[in-house]
């Protein structure tokens, strides 16, 4: 049985169409991320699954049960909110125990479960603190423990990491994913951060203006984006506007590139180049045969730790090239360079598809 089925979901707020024809099926134990810019409807989908919003049209099945008219308190889901939403008048232990207290479970059972959960989120010893005495990362761990306390069938995470510092965010990212795999809990995660989506998910749903753009594994989304928007939103890319000839040759300014993956046969087209697909050398003799070649001048070199990103000006367009730090040969601003790429890499889309 599917853990969650959302079928043709529609939701508008006044004149704003927040979600249009959203359909998704989730397997049990799967981690699915809704990814998109703010206002793309991803949070509305999550809130409709939680029961906070009513669908205008469409059905939501939670483990086979039609749930459209079930109020949030009767749905078997747990949720973690962006701003933690811990009850400020209760201690950590009371917060975590809240759902069990509502169900009037015996005290000793509650105490045992709270202890287990605190250990799970590595906060043992803090049960008597109040939320305002905790750091952001600790608060979000408590919120996670509280959401897991009632053993929900589905866990909903609404941008749980976006209010945290970069360091804590990265750490918690890994922890949440490990915890999710350990418990095998079906999880629907909402974020606008592509890195979170790529690192944590089994599958990613990329959304824009309430419409699903693409559903796929992180690898599929990154390597084989379905349109320029997905390519632009997930990962870094350079875009070249040109013209396709016979589905094989891409003409950009006065350059001709051979390409193998084009969605256009003839006419105006947009080529997507990932910085990692591009290579850079000083002399033309080092370029492998059959590569597409461009000449340019380095305008900026930025060091990102494990990789170095070089901005190269080619015919008044800035193109990004990334290479592992250890392969970086010390190009500097102003150097004349040769950039090349294999015909296998670039994707070509029809021009009318917008990246924004």
């Amino acid at each position: 049985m599917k853990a969650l089925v959302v079928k043709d979901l529609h939701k508008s707020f006044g004149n704003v169409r927040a979600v249009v024809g959203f359909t998704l099926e989730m397997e049990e134990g799967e981690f699915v991320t809704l990814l998109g810019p703010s206002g793309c409807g991803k949070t509305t989908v999550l809130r409709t699954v939680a029961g906070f919003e009513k669908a205008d049209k469409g059905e939501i099945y939670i483990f086979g049960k039609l749930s459209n008219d079930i109020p949030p308190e009767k749905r078997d889901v747990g949720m973690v909110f962006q701003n933690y939403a811990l009850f400020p008048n209760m201690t950590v232990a009371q917060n975590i125990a809240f759902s069990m207290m509502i169900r009037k479970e015996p005290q000793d059972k509650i105490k045992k479960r709270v202890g287990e959960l605190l250990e799970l989120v590595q906060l043992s010893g803090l049960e008597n603190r109040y939320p305002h005495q905790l750091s952001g990362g600790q608060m979000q761990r408590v919120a996670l423990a509280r959401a897991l306390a009632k053993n929900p069938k589905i866990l909903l995470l609404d941008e749980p990491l976006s209010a945290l510092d970069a360091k804590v965010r990265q750490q918690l990212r890994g922890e949440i994913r490990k915890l999710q795999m350990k418990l095998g809990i079906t999880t629907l995660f909402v974020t606008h951060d592509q890195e979170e989506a790529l690192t944590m998910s089994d599958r990613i749903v990329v959304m824009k203006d309430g419409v699903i753009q693409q559903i796929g594994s992180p690898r599929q989304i990154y390597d084989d984006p379905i349109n320029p928007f997905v390519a632009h939103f997930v990962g870094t890319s350079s875009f070249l506007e040109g013209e396709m000839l016979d589905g094989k040759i891409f003409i950009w300014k006065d350059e001709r590139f051979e390409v193998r993956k084009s969605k256009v046969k003839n006419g105006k087209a947009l080529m997507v180049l990932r910085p990692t697909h591009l290579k850079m050398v000083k002399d033309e003799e080092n370029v492998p045969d059959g590569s597409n070649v461009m000449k340019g001048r380095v305008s900026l070199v930025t060091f990102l730790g494990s990789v170095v990103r070089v901005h190269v000006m080619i015919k008044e367009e800035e193109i990004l090239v990334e290479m592992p730090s250890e392969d970086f040969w010390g190009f500097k601003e102003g150097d004349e360079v040769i950039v090349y790429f294999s015909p296998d890499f670039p994707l070509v889309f029809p021009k009318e598809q917008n990246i924004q």
Partner: protein
Amino acid sequence: MRKSEKRWNIIAHIILIVFSFIILAPILWTIRTSFATDVIAYEIPPRFFFKPTIKNYINILVENNFIRHFKNSFVVSLSSTLISIPIASLAGYAFARYNTGGERLKFTVIATQMLPPIVLVIPLFAIYMKFHLVNTLHGLTISYLAFNLPFLIWILMGFFEGIPKELEEAALIDGATPLKAFLKIVFPISAPGIMAAAVLSFIMCWNEFLFALVLTGASSATIPVALAALQTQRGVLIGKLSAGVVMAIAPIVILSLFIQKYLVKGLSFGAIK
């Protein structure tokens, strides 16, 4: 602390002391007069040191029936507060969370406060005559209720709006019904705010003069009305009046200390995020 900072600090304090004194002087003088005999009270130039007497307090309580007026004030202020707070809480909550009636209803509620009370007091008196509500404590309570509710609704609405919606949603998703979420989460968190609003309502009723003057009679007069009555044809009974004023202020001063504590507590709960 640097020298110039220190000097500014001293100047600031001198200014503050002067203004505090300007505000406090009449009150202090009233307190002083309340312990003086009429002879000393009217003496010019005034005497600062004299043997204090509590005769004014005894006289006003016994001769002028102030125990009764105190009771009246207390009954009216307390009952209108106790009735208005639950109504205002629920109304404010509905406005804040469900936007009941939209912006227009919110505005209408506050718009009732824009009429000067004096416009309403005569028609109200005529209506009260018909319903035999003049010179009754419940009549006065009803009028206070009507005039305090919009104000309290707005105060509490602002307070509820400050409580993140996610807190209730978190309670709902954890299995609480909407009523339970209100009672277990929203109510405890907003208790300081509700308490502050209650104290404010009490103070407004306690100090109200115009409606009390028109709608009450000798037996139902509240403190402000009774104090005004001390301006007699034989002149102002300054000793008694002072004693009455001091007694009228006392409960408010005590309440103000309470409200301060709750306001501070209310602010510290701002750390919800």
